[in-house]
């Protein structure tokens, strides 16, 4: 055990994280954690085509995470790499929104999580592609076309399930019950977002309008006056993130520096 801890916790002070570094990591963490969650469906999707769809979305998200981490590594300098950011940071250092780390649950819960997130990400990247930081802008512009695809696919599924059978409708209601409390955090800016990022609070109106339109078509009611959980952006997570990281980081924690 002694060796385990020695080999995985760096003795030197980690590179200083400024607002820009924190923001870049936040964007990367959102993509990585949701990508990892979606990847859990690999081989378990309800039908082959949708198994492929959700894992394709996972691949897109992990690709985004790589782009953000490569840039963050460049900003942080020293020997930081995209891999050390993904595999060697601790739970409290991750800045992803709480909704991305919630369990897959059933297909309805996975679909709703994707819809809430893609709706936010689509609006965010539309703004971010014009950000004065050219690299963040380029990553967003590149990913926007893919995110448009995710949003369309997940919106259609929310409608299909909500307006489907009695059973699928019931499951969407349960998914809303489970996830709604995490939907507000996406639009409540953390300090680093206020300093260097896109003001997400300004995206909320458009996001709400889209949700209302899709929910209406899906015969689902938009919940009112729900207390919103926050903290993920500052590293305070639900119990689920630790389990995700345990699986994600296992190889690097057990065999530091392993390559294949």
């Amino acid at each position, binding site marked *: 055990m002694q060796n385990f801890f020695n080999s995985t916790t760096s003795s030197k002070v980690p590179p200083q994280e400024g607002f820009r570094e924190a923001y870049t990591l936040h964007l990367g963490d959102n993509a990585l954690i949701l990508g990892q969650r979606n990847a859990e469906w690999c081989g378990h999707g309800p039908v082959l085509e949708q198994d492929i769809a959700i894992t394709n979305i996972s691949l897109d998200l992990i*690709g985004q995470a790589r782009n953000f981490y490569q840039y963050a590594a460049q900003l942080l300098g020293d020997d930081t790499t995209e891999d050390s950011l993904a595999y060697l940071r601790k739970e409290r250092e991750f800045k992803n929104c709480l909704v991305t780390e919630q369990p897959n649950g059933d297909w309805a819960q996975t679909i709703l999580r994707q819809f809430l997130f893609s709706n936010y990400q689509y609006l965010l990247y539309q703004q971010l592609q014009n950000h004065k930081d050219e690299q963040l802008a*380029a990553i967003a512009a590149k990913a926007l076309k893919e995110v448009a*695809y995710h949003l369309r696919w997940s919106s259609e599924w929310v409608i299909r399930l909500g307006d489907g059978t009695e059973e699928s409708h019931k499951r969407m209601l349960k998914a809303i019950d489970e996830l709604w409390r995490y939907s507000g955090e996406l639009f409540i800016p953390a300090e680093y977002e206020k300093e260097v990022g896109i003001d997400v609070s300004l995206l909320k109106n458009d996001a709400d309008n889209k949700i209302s339109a899709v929910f209406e078509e899906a015969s689902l009611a938009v919940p009112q006056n729900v207390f919103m959980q926050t903290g993920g952006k500052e590293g305070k997570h639900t119990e689920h993130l630790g389990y995700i990281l345990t699986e994600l980081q296992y190889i690097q924690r057990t065999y530091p520096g392993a390559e294949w």
Partner: protein
Amino acid sequence: MVTTLTIEEKKLWHILEQVTDPEVPVLTITDLGIVREIKINDDNTEIIITPTYTGCPAMDMISMNIRLALIEAGYKNVLITTVLSPAWTTDWMSEEGKRKLKEYGIAPPNPKQQVCSDKLFAADEAVQCPHCNSWHTHRISEFGSTACKALYQCDDCKEPFDYFKCH
């Protein structure tokens, strides 16, 4: 642009025209339009490429294959730089590339149109069957075997086929 190429640059492009996409081996990287620029610097040869899709897992292998091809041709210091902007689009795919795709059994991308919008339940794009040339086809899934493809089926010859979706 062609007229301004030096002999050395032409030689490099010619080498790059031999490097294929590992996932769609009938296409070369120049057919795909992912080589954006070549630079002959004082101490290295720089190849600037752009990924097709953000998460395309073939990009690492493509970089390696470019490096190998150039080393094989005698280039010593090869630098491969990836740029994201401007974002790649299927409109950069060469006509030759589209012809080869179809011959291989993958429907080539249509010119960019409505598909990148977020409009729901939009009508399927008209995609021509690469086997029997019928336009009487329908989409089975928006996502396919790789990030760049969607799955279609022909209603006439009944064959399922991949469509290289416009992006």
